[in-house]
């Protein structure tokens, strides 16, 4: 496969790269090193710019009014969008807009009117309620939140943890067990409005990602009607699983973007900094670290674009997505670590973005399926096909 960007893709890449360097990074220099949002006036101004670029709502499908961006191009742009301090989790501070949750595009017409369109207009924000205190790596088996039939609806009881944005969302997608005897075929996906009686955001969960927090939710006799079922009863896991697989590709791209930014900083520093009468760049120990960075980045980029290309062609890409997520999150972590080492004491300070990337990149080896689960997915493919 040829992964060289086409001239059209290169034009978009250059456009987004300029935007990050000329608009985002200068604003970021004035923000707290752990900031997760821009000043609202700056955000509004920049949204107008991304609209003028024709890239606002970048993840919205064309039929819903978004730009016509295929997943390979999306990956190339995601790599660019991540190349600033907050870029791993808040690429360009959301100024390219959001599409909400992919599952809502599968909603029925009534649900689209109530949730999808207001989300696309920026009037509503959703949360994704899957992980539970009983575990997140194997959600199909770990889900203990129950939904029981009552009064032409369902009563939810249980808890969710590590849920982002639930305290600020207007609604969320919540997975609950509707048939205890059927494993992953006994899970249903519900849309829950934030104000529903019995729905509580109980606490903030602080993590390494100190720019933002997750939340813990409780459902206590929380009644929702049949109209709130997304998809079909007992077919909720397919809804979750599709998202988890597809999400791994842009997730990997973000890691690559940050790795490139850290690597470029390390190269610049190595060329500038002298020790014992010579530039760091002339030391073999430093050169080898930079070489290893280059290899980690190229490896991750290759596998991520391969996964995207398969997805674009409509081919199965589950294994490729797992390889991409694994190489990008693990390789990205190594790159940031080496870049910090090359920077010495400065690399540990909040003066530079490296320490934030180091903390946030560590989460990437766990989020969206830990490395071990990715390896499990890949192993199934290898063993299932008699080692090819």
């Amino acid at each position, binding site marked *: 496969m040829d992964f060289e960007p086409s001239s059209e893709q290169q034009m978009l890449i250059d456009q987004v790269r300029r935007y990050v360097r000329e608009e985002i990074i200068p604003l970021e220099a004035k923000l707290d090193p752990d900031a*997760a949002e821009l000043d609202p006036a700056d955000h509004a101004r920049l949204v107008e710019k991304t609209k003028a670029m024709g890239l606002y709502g970048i993840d919205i499908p064309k039929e819903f009014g978004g730009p016509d961006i295929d997943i390979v191009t999306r990956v190339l742009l995601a790599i660019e969008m991540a190349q600033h301090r907050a870029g791993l989790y808040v690429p360009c501070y959301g100024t390219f807009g959001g599409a909400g949750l992919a599952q809502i595009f599968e909603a029925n017409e009534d649900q689209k009117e109530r949730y999808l369109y207001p989300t696309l207009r920026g009037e509503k924000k959703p949360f994704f309620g899957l992980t539970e205190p009983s575990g997140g790596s194997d959600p199909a088996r770990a889900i203990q939140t129950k939904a029981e039939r009552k009064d032409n609806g369902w009563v939810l009881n249980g808890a969710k943890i590590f849920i982002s944005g639930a305290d600020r969302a207007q609604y969320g997608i919540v997975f609950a067990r509707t048939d205890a005897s059927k494993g992953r075929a006994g899970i249903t996906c519900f849309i829950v409005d934030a104000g529903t009686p019995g729905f509580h955001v109980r606490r*903030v969960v602080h993590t390494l990602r100190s720019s933002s927090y997750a939340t813990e939710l409780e459902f206590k006799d929380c009644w929702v009607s049949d109209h709130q079922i997304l998809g079909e009863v007992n077919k909720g896991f397919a809804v979750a699983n599709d998202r988890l697989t597809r999400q791994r590709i842009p997730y990997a791209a973000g890691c690559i973007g940050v790795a490139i930014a850290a690597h470029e900083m390390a190269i610049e520093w190595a060329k500038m900094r002298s020790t014992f009468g010579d530039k760091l760049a002339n030391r073999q120990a430093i050169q080898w670290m930079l070489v290893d960075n280059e290899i980690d980045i190229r490896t991750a980029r290759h596998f991520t674009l391969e996964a995207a290309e398969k997805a674009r062609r409509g081919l199965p890409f589950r294994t490729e997505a797992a390889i991409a997520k694994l190489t990008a999150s693990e390789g990205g972590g190594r790159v940031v670590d080496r870049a910090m080492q090359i920077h010495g004491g400065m690399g540990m300070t*909040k003066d530079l973005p490296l320490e934030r990337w180091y903390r946030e990149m560590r989460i990437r080896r766990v989020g969206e399926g830990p490395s071990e689960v990715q390896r499990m997915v890949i192993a199934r493919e290898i063993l299932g096909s008699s080692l090819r």
Partner: protein
Amino acid sequence: MALRLRLDKPWRPLTAEVVDRLPGQLGVYQIADAKGTIVFIGQAGARSTFGLRSELQREASQRASGHQFRMEVNQQYRTRWLELLMVHQADHGSLPTDNAKNPPPALGRLSPN
């Protein structure tokens, strides 16, 4: 195991003599009036010159005598600050008076146990 949700350390007088001896670490703090009503919840972020010390020195120089403070050294000053604001809102139905004048955008809602 959840961390402690509310700041429950003893109040200390917000005077130059006291705050000049504070550490320079990052963290969060609360300011109360003489009656013990919380009027402001603040953070000492990485852009502050000497962390909690410089933020509370500024507070002491700008507020009338009789105010009190309590603080918590915390590297996660941003999320802890937002958490304290949300907990205060849940406990009292509103933000502290001085935060209400300039609330953070899109503050979340908590209903802590």
